[in-house]
């Protein structure tokens, strides 16, 4: 990276507080594909000059997969440990790179003593665009390119965020096409509810194949995602359909970073 990503510990040592904490998440930290998205989110934050920080090695799993799998103990252990860290740093506002972290911190942490203003990175991008701080210039042109957006369940149906990601794409002057099942009727990529970490049950098709077939029907050049798990499922699907040369699966943060030449 061309710049240093600041951690909370460093800021605290300097007696400073960030405007916003970037919660990276496990996928964003460890998964190679998702790491690229994480770095792009940092590039955007750096580019617009927001004072931000990450927790670095002090971050731990939000407990989301444990809670969806039914292990409330483990979830609450994780949650309370994280809340202690977040409250210790006096965090007020959080942006997450993952809809699962977003949902968990926003909705399930307040009851355990962790109340913050939580937004997803697509909402941050939309805010920056509407404030005029972020444009789509100085980088790759997406003008006229066909993009279809896949709604992550925990962003869309889970929390009613349908417009922000679409607004973030509209600024590109691209050709946005909707899949048949979109927004509140969107089809899951197959990874939610801790499915990401297990083999699917017996059936006649994998869910990500069902979804990718629908996405490909729109004949897109880019499939836009907003979740690292959807990213894995959709990328796998495109590869299995042997379309990974023509069709790119990109996170909205990556598209935004590219459009701005970051």
């Amino acid at each position, binding site marked *: *990276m061309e710049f*240093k*990503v600041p951690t909370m510990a460093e800021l605290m040592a300097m007696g400073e507080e960030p405007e916003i904490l970037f919660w*990276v998440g*496990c996928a964003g*930290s*460890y998964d190679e594909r998702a*790491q690229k998205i994480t*770095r792009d989110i940092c590039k955007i934050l750096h580019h617009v000059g927001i004072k931000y920080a*990450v927790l*670095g*090695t002090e*971050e*731990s*799993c939000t*407990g989301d997969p444990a*809670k969806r*799998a*039914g*292990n*409330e*103990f*483990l979830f*609450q*252990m*994780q949650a*309370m440990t994280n809340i202690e860290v977040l409250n210790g740093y006096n965090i007020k506002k959080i942006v997450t790179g993952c809809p699962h972290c977003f*949902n968990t911190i*926003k*909705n*399930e942490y307040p*009851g*355990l003593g962790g109340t913050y203003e939580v937004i997803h990175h697509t909402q941050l991008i939309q805010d920056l665009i509407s404030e005029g701080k972020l444009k789509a210039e100085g980088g790759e042109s997406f003008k006229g390119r066909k993009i279809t957006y896949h709604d992550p*369940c925990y962003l869309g*149906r*889970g*929390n009613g965020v349908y417009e922000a990601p679409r607004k973030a794409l509209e600024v590109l002057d691209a050709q946005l096409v909707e899949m048949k*099942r979109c927004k509140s*009727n969107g*089809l*899951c990529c*197959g*990874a*939610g*509810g*801790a499915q*990401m*970490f*297990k*083999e*699917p*049950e*017996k*059936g006649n*098709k*994998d*869910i990500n*194949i*069902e*979804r990718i077939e629908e996405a490909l029907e729109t004949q897109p050049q880019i499939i836009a995602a907003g979740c690292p798990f959807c990213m894995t499922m959709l990328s796998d699907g495109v590869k299995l359909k042997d379309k990974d040369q023509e069709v790119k699966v990109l996170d909205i943060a990556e598209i935004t970073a590219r459009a701005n030449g970051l």
Partner: protein
Amino acid sequence: MASQLIFLLLTLAGVALFSFNARKVIRNIKTGKPENRTDQPAKRFATMLKVAFGQTKMAVRPVPFLLHLVVYLGFVIINLEVLEIMIDGIFGTHRIFAGLGGFYNFLIGSFELLALGVWLACAVFLIRRNILKLKRFSGVEMKSWPRSDANYILITEILLMTAFLLMNAADSKLQALGEGHYVSAGAFPVSAYLQGLLPTFASSLILVERVCWWFHIVGIFAFLNYLPYSKHFHILFAFPNTYFSNLKPKGEFTDMASVTNEVKAMLDPSFVPAEIAPGKFGAKDVNDLSWINLMNAYTCTECGRCTSVCPANITGKLLSPRKIMMDTRDRLEEVGKNIDKHGADYQDGKSLLDDYVTREEIWACTSCNACTEACPINIDPLAIIVELRRFAVMEESIAPASINAMLGNVENNGAPWKYSPADRFNWAEEG
């Protein structure tokens, strides 16, 4: 006089039997765990008005929406006529509201048009189920009883509407003959076309009119008493079910206060937890579920919108959200019968998990909330699936091996994969 007495007894018996069975259903629902859903009454009331009265979530599928709207309006409006039938039945009068004149004619005329609409809509519904065999109405859980149940309801509605129209046809013919107490009242835009089917003699017409009148009212009482056994219970339960529905974001799962106490005590030895009655974690049987989950089960109309959008079901997995609801109701009915026969503490050795819902089903769920979004009356199958998972994981420690591995990783590494926490920030070094 005798007919008035019979009518009165029939009415009392019909209402008494219904309240006896309805009370049992309410008792069954109350065997569930408490869950407070009394906050934000104004928002709850608005939700009920919008979703149950206004049927806004039905509009997603325009064809069944319009057909259902006709039957719904027909049901609600034609039942105004029942008020007149009740008064006539008890006091031995005939068309007591005839004095309303033009307005009465308007009412009867509207009822007739609606009755025709209901008749046709039900016929289309029967065709969709039995001839077109729409995929939504099939599935492993749609065995012979649920299929017959739907057909019984539709056929009964057709018969009731037929009786209503034939009654009016005979009545208007008798009015024309100037027969006895058949006062000239009402407008008959539909039944006028049925007059030709009826006999011409007054005595036969009176017989037809009376038989239809009795069939209509007895049919209504029979229908009322059929509800507790049928998926058609939604006509009543849709209202409380939407009123008490989940107002929080769909992505948010319930918190478990009992767990919070234990976790707090673990993290801070000086913490003294408030006294909370020990209980199971999660649900093995219906009584471990909340009363909301159980009311959801009685409310389900088995329309299958949930299953038709479930990603697991679409891709051939065993999971069907509709089956989760039907299993919950079937098991709860069984538990209720056990209470009737053997008393409240009887254990039959069966449970919702394993005897009704299998592990394969609960682990196929992606928790995507497509089912809860699709339900026209805000039923939440996901909440039940989560409770069953909680029992399997926290009480039994039985989960797919890969899930256990993931949980182990979260516990030891703070991530669902086997990576070292020390490497968590390495992403910033590269790229």
